[in-house]
């Protein structure tokens, strides 16, 4: 890393003239090529509202310090321009927090590059998600780190959805935490999980274990249900046709929608 990079960074905070800070020249100093620098200036100027341009230089610098190269930064900018609204001090705090949660060098950079949205999440919210995973779902500290690494999107998921997803898999499918991790459960939406499970269940190929954890058939592993493409799931796991599953998805969507409507009408009664 170039120590010189610290300087423009600090100046951004003090200065009230952000436009002059974010320049092709200063970007080239950070290591961007001419074209990349132009692209960045263009993108940043298109970000609407807030003070993106004001934080742009400091954000870019922080990302460089983290160790991302120019092209990853460029991709990140396209994926999640919101990162440029985040103040430098908060950004640093959030990165430090992720380190504290066990994301070591390498993993940390991969997570940020893969899911930059994680830098828009306040430390407090992240703490709540971690607490929820540890206390309500009884994941170990190491497992929580693994979840953050494999499925960082959990941090922005609706908490009650997250809770329902966990409970669904734990109670209805009878799957334990270690297996949830292996299957990268948290990468899938609740509906995807439910739909694949219900399809198997209605075909007679999945059973909820009884109190002793026993079933009369051998359930397929969660990993083999989730960690495969839909096509593979349908033909190799459910041994059905794509047509059947397509119709089934439509039917389930309607079933769930109508269940929810019914619940809503009970609530308002």
């Amino acid at each position, binding site marked *: 890393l170039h120590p010189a990079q610290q300087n423009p960074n600090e100046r951004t905070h003090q200065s009230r003239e952000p436009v002059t800070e974010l320049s092709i020249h200063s970007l080239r100093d950070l290591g961007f090529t001419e074209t990349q620098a132009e692209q960045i200036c263009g993108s940043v100027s298109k970000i609407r509202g807030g003070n993106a341009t004001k934080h742009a230089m400091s954000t870019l610098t922080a990302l460089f310090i983290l160790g991302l190269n120019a092209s990853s930064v460029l991709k990140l900018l396209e994926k999640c321009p919101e990162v440029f609204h985040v103040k430098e001090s908060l950004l640093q705090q959030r990165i430090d927090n992720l380190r504290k949660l066990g994301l070591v060098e390498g993993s940390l950079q991969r997570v940020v590059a893969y899911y930059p949205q994680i830098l828009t999440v306040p430390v407090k919210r992240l703490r709540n998600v971690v607490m929820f995973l540890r206390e309500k779902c009884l994941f170990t500290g190491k497992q929580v780190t693994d979840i953050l690494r494999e499925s960082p999107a959990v941090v922005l998921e609706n908490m009650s959805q997250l809770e329902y997803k966990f409970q669904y898999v734990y109670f209805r499918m009878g799957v334990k935490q270690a297996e949830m991790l292996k299957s990268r459960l948290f990468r899938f939406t609740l509906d995807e999980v439910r739909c694949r499970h219900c*399809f198997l269940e*209605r*075909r*007679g*190929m999945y059973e909820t274990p009884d109190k002793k954890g026993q079933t009369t058939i051998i359930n397929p592993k969660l990993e083999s249900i989730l960690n495969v493409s839909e096509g593979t799931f349908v033909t190799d796991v*459910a*041994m*059905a046709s794509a*047509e*059947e599953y*397509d*119709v*089934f998805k*439509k*039917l389930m969507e*309607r*079933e769930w929608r109508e269940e929810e409507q019914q619940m809503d009408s009970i609530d308002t009664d």
Partner: protein
Amino acid sequence: EKWAATRAKYPPTTLALRHFDSTYSTQLGKLWPSIRVALLSERKYGALLNNFSFDDIPEDYEAQGCRDFIRDTDTEAQPRLQQESEFVAERESDCVSVQNADADSLQLPPLQLSRNVKCLVFPRGDITRFKPAKPDKSGLLSYYLMDAASVLPCLALNVEDGHNVLDLCAAPGGKTLALLQTHSLGFLCVNDASVSRTMRLKRVLRSYIPKDLLTDEKLRITSFDGTMWGEVETNVFNRVLVDVPCTTDRHSLLEDDNNIFNKSRVGERRRLPQLQTELLLAGILAACPGGEILYSTCTLCRSQNHSVVEQAIQLAQENHGIQLQVVDLRPLTHMFRKTFHFAPDLPLGEMVVPHLAANFGPIYMCKLRRLT
């Protein structure tokens, strides 16, 4: 506490599923998972159009891709049937049993389907629902929602002009309505042992059929025990529909109310094949020589389907000296294979099996002709 003690540990729907899992996985083999998921998911309906209503086919249904499945048949079927219809007359007279004719040597007899029966369905894989029918200006409803596969037994019965027809187990009346759409009936006897269900049947008929067709000269509605029909009236009907009570697989899997898998109804359920055989035999006796009988159920269960037919054929021969011929329904299944999934290789009769993309049935049917 008393309540807790008498409450069943497993609801009837669960018992039904277990029972089906053990029997159908062997009877249907690889087909079972696909039928199972269809049975446990929302079924499809057909809209049997009421020719007596003043209202036209609701236009928006056609715009949405609905079609009359009876006319929308497999395109290969028609030319083949016409070509071969000449052979058929010969073959029919000297062939008593067509049970084991193999597919290559099979010469398809002509199908004389009533032009007047029309039933709309949404295309394969389309899960759109029909709206409830509205009354027209004369108060008649323009269509009746039913399992489209239930129309097949009525078509297979092949009613011709002036025929005397008996519908032995008729309530709530979906198939009766389909039979009445043919406009061909001479006289129709409608029966159902259950008085309350017969009342419902009467209400259905009043909502669909003009009064002048419901007169005593054209129609009789009774509530007899169908098994006793032979003692009242024998050898009179050209066509007899025997749509028996059965385990109603779909209902048994989805509704705990009035479920035949309820612990308290074990005896009744065990006696079903016996009752079904008696009903079919009564239907056979009620038909005239040369007359045709159609047996149907809405279960996949062998012991309620072809076993009953075999048993009844034997009893008719042994106890009443009646010779029966099993009528091949393959032309019919061939014609409608675009709309329904049929079970392959049944020893006797034909069966519509549920499939998610065409979630109709189950409907089993077997047609018999009285030779003597």
